[in-house]
């Protein structure tokens, strides 16, 4: 196919995705295009090593450590790197801070760009058509659906991730959590609070 072909691409696969995925995997292993151990390692990384616990650590540290907070906003990519988080889908990171005047939330209307090294693989709703359609047009309704009610003073800032810049929302630290250590703060920082569709929550 050439790219100046204006027709849409064709369909090559049978309809049952589970069957197809398994057969395709077998075929590509047999062809020597992929190594089974590599596939296992990728799954292991995104199931166990890279996930929202990384972003929670970044936010908790920014709450507990003023110097780190300054670095996080001045040079976010370096700041998260200093905690060991970097790489694929997080090459260029910007931290945006929620305040009493501004509430930030992140979307990717064109696909599902997301800061993988900090938050892992995006949840279903983030990749859904309804979130992609609605977040830029009716962010307040969307937030309401997540149970987030804004203060009258707060304006919404939506970040549509159209390039390779990835956004981390730094939520406001709950009053109740002030004075806790970085380790104690980590579980307060929920995944959704770092996308802007939730607020930090006292751990159960």
């Amino acid at each position: 196919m050439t790219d100046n072909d204006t027709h849409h691409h064709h369909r090559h696969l049978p309809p049952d995705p589970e069957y197809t995925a398994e057969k395709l995997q077998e075929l590509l292993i047999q062809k020597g295009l992929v190594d089974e151990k590599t596939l296992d390692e990728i799954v292991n990384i995104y199931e166990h090593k890279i996930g929202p616990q990384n972003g929670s650590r970044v936010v908790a540290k920014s709450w507990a450590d003023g110097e780190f907070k300054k670095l996080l906003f001045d040079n976010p990519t370096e700041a998260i790197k200093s905690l060991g988080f970097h790489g694929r889908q997080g090459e260029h990171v910007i931290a945006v801070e929620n305040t009493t005047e501004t509430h930030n939330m992140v979307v990717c209307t064109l696909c599902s760009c997301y800061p993988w090294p900090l938050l892992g693989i995006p949840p279903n709703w983030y990749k859904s058509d309804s979130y992609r359609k609605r977040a830029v047009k009716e962010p307040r309704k969307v937030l309401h659906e997540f149970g987030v009610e804004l203060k009258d003073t707060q304006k919404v800032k939506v970040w549509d991730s159209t390039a390779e810049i990835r956004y981390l929302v730094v939520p406001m630290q709950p009053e109740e959590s002030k004075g806790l250590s970085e380790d104690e703060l980590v579980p307060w920082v929920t995944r959704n609070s770092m996308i802007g569709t939730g607020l930090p929550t006292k751990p159960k």
Partner: protein
Amino acid sequence: MTKIHDMGGIPCVESLPLENTTVFEKKWHKIVLSLTLAVGALGKWNLDRSRYFRESLPPDDYGNFTYYEKWMAGLVNLMVDSGLIDQSELRDFKVASKSMQGISVSPEALKSMIAKGDPSLCNSNTCFEPHEIGTLVKTKSPPANNYLENGHTRLPAYSSGSKGEIVLYHGFHRLPDANAHLLGPNPEPLYTVSFTAYALWGNEAENPDDKIHLDLWHSYLEPIAVK
């Protein structure tokens, strides 16, 4: 032409699917994600091209497929396009050609590729004089690819032809409009442009003073004179 993936702002009454939040809902999701990364690591295409292939799926498929079905269909089309696999192999799921034998990426190499990523930031060039922060701009309309008809672009239709203000400058970044079609990185200045909800949605805005920020390349923007 507006494509089906370009859906920001399209009227939608569906509520959000908030129920399932496990990393991988089904076992085959793991297969598709790991295959996509492992085959992608062979370096036959780039991320912009894989986005272009997903969004070029037949519109019915794009609309009906779940997330990982889109990934799988995009991956297969990329593999056919780049000669990694032929259509008969997909029909029978049997190896027909062994010419690529042994090119797979090892777990160690893949791990280091994930850790390193693929920064889109490039050296600056003299083809473009970056605009200053605070410059008022109007986005290109229609949101067309300048290199080829119906090509890939990252200017969403909902923002096309709207006025905003440059609030951040990110340096020169690879231009997806060229890179997706293997025409080179063609780096351009990249900015974050801030639009008021009113500028994008007019009287339909939920709150006219809310802001929507998009990351847009130099050639997507035309500076406008300050009154």
